[in-house]
């Protein structure tokens, strides 16, 4: 790939999705866009880029953006954000919402569904609905392709062996051929829809927890700040924001502050100190 081609595709992705592609990520272009080129019967990336340059083909454009913005996803990825949910956030929220018995969770980069389903499995094991709680989990992603997979809830043997304890597999999945399908009660606990984080958030209610992990890394500083500040408006005053292990709000916005002693967990600045005391 020539430097001019790289510059074009980097600029193109930035404009379409906000994705910032640094030169060290060039390998991602090869590994992710070669299959896209093949799908549209194009011989190589040069031909694919030429197609994008000539414009007019929305399907190709969409496929390129989706291929480049899709994350690898595991069940219970990084473990800690789920342990923190179970041990800290959930008990605190159940206490605070004991009256209305309603919780709303948003997974803002739901990808192929592993994160929202991991939360749904925790909630199922806690038997919240049996105790009269209504818990809504909303999963959004830029890519309709990954959301179709999430909705389908069908995972390869390889995917169900990364991060998912065997007891969870037995309890919450059914074998289908050589693959594993998440059971309907878990599947139905999550509602999916397509959303671009760069665009105004529409049709959302107030959330108690927002998971926004490993997606901000793709955006530049002003976009990160803008997304976080719009998320703050959708978060309950005593709600939690969960970021990826390599991400932070520090230096980006004062809308959130870290919850002390809980790595990767943030609260609205006004509430952060009282939530610390509640741990």
């Amino acid at each position, binding site marked *: 790939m020539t430097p001019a081609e790289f510059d074009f595709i980097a600029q193109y992705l930035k404009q379409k999705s906000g994705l910032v592609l640094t030169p060290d990520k060039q390998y991602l272009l090869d590994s992710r866009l070669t299959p896209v080129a093949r799908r549209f019967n194009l011989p190589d990336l040069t031909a694919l880029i030429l197609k994008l340059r000539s414009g007019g083909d929305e399907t190709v454009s969409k496929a390129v953006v989706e291929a480049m913005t899709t994350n690898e996803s595991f069940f219970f990825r990084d473990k800690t954000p789920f342990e923190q949910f179970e041990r800290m956030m959930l008990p605190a929220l159940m206490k605070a919402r004991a009256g209305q018995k309603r919780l709303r969770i948003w997974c803002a980069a739901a990808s192929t569904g592993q994160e929202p389903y991991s939360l749904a499995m925790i909630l199922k094991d806690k038997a919240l609905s049996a105790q009269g709680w209504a818990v809504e989990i909303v999963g959004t992603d830029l890519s309709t392709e990954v959301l179709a997979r999430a909705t389908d809830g069908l995972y390869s*043997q*390889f995917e169900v*062996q*990364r*991060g998912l304890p*065997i007891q969870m597999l*037995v309890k919450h999945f059914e074998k289908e051929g050589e693959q594993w399908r998440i059971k309907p009660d878990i599947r139905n606990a999550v509602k999916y829809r397509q959303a671009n984080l760069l665009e105004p958030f529409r049709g959302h209610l107030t959330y108690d927890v927002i998971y926004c992990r490993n997606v901000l890394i793709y955006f530049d500083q002003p976009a990160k700040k803008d997304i976080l500040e719009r998320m703050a408006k959708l978060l309950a005053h005593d709600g939690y924001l969960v970021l990826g292990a390599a991400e932070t709000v520090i230096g980006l916005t004062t809308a959130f502050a870290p919850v002390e002693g809980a790595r990767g967990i943030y609260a609205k600045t006004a509430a952060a100190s009282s939530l610390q005391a509640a741990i």
Partner: protein
Amino acid sequence: MKHCLIVDDSRVIRKVARRILEELAFEIGEAEDGALALDYCRQQMPDAILLDWNMPNMNGLEFLRALRGGGAGSEGERPVVLFCTTENDLDHITAAIEAGANEYIMKPFDKEILEAKFTETGLL
């Protein structure tokens, strides 16, 4: 250094698993079937056992039942046992858990899966 016994009748599988687990800083022992694995455990009880299902003489499930039942001494409850087999249906998985397996790996596996499962069971 933690000590892991690899029980599999395939020399290739033992070699692959050994290489991955040595990288994860385990001290490795090997056995070709369940009967030899029981002998091994009587000599020195490992911290972890990576266990194939289908093997001659004594299969993985028979070995596990014997181990947990005290057939290799009173320490038989201690090792973390991870099945590692091509058997990948719910009946086999359930039987393994009921016999006292801590985790279950469906072959084929790679470093990422072994690492995830060993982490899952607190070995890493």
